[in-house]
């Protein structure tokens, strides 16, 4: 399936994209929330969005809130961030993220989260 990775770090995108490839998925990249919004709009066949929290221009939480107001994204959104405080997790879930991956994580964890979210 096609997965959008929204993260301002290219190395992180490369790493996640490699993990996804090994799981048989295709990754596309957006470098911030605004770019993510455009990529979502241009790719109607997206099945999953992996969303970083801290990014310039539009951060992950703003992306979630924008989607909460406009519902432009039909695919499930999973946060993927170094933010690991329970309050942050709570806030992301409250704003529409379906699950949450704390960095660092392993390919195992990514696979498991994908299975649960996309089942």
């Amino acid at each position, binding site marked *: 399936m096609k997965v959008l990775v929204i993260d301002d770090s290219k190395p992180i995108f490369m790493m996640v994209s490699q993990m996804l490839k090994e799981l048989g998925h295709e990754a596309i990249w957006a470098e911030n929330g605004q770019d993510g919004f455009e990529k979502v709009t241009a790719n109607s066949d997206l099945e999953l969005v992996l969303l970083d929290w801290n990014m310039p221009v539009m951060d992950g939480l703003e992306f979630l809130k924008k989607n909460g107001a406009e519902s432009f994204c039909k695919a499930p959104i999973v*946060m993927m961030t170094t933010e*690991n*405080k*329970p309050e942050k*997790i*709570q806030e*992301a*879930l409250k704003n529409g*993220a379906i*699950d*949450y*991956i*704390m960095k*660092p*994580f*392993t390919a*195992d*964890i990514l696979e*498991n*989260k994908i*299975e*649960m979210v996309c*089942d």
Partner: protein
Amino acid sequence: MTNPEVYKFFSDYVYQHTGILYKEQDYYRLDSRFNTLVKKFEVKDASELFNLYVQKITPEMHTILIDLCTNNETYFMRDLKPFKAFAKEGMDYLKETFPNSISYNIWSAACSTGQEPLSLLMALDSFGDKLNLNKYKIEASDISTNALDKAKKGLYTGLEVQRGLPANLLIQYFSQVEDNWQVNKDLHNKISFKKLNLLTESFPLNEYHIIFCRNVLIYQDMENKKKILSKISDAIKPGGLLFMGAGESLIGVDIPMKQLELGKAFCYVKDS
């Protein structure tokens, strides 16, 4: 090069005490375990270790060896479907089959570091009817002292809590302690943990409504598997359920249980 006699001595000892089988072609999997023991007991190599163990095996030496030779791999909500089926259809089934039971006895028979019994409780609470958790008596046991110690602490790393556990359950049932996660007391205290060897010890008769015995019999040969399963079957109440691991089955084992499709999972029901 380690002497085959050394491998044989240790694999025989482990087999005899746990049923865990290291076949000749698996001997190399003992090497890293020997290394750990060599450091631990400050001896030169595996043959000195052997000299130490052939003289006398103290209870401590026994525990360390057995701990090392178990594979404690586990994660929360392992395979998910059995936990959902257990909490929803499984509970409906119990209510119907045991209308007079005021509480249900559930046993996680190889609980490793505790993820399985905790998952049972979280599943009941979040996928089930939100029944009063006091209706359940959860026992959990394992042969490995190390694994049990961790289970009794209920403290898991960021990586461990992400394996199998959706984030909503994480923040609902755990609190953060530095970079680790501590399971909430009210959940944790519902589980009674104890050390138990499935192969050598006996179990209470007709005691349990449900037993989870998952991913432990795969390390046993057929003869021991039959022996353990027949004790397990005796421990389940007539009409009670057995959940095994994905890919495990009772094929070739002659005990009075039949396969039952429960929600999206399969389990076994004991004849009544």
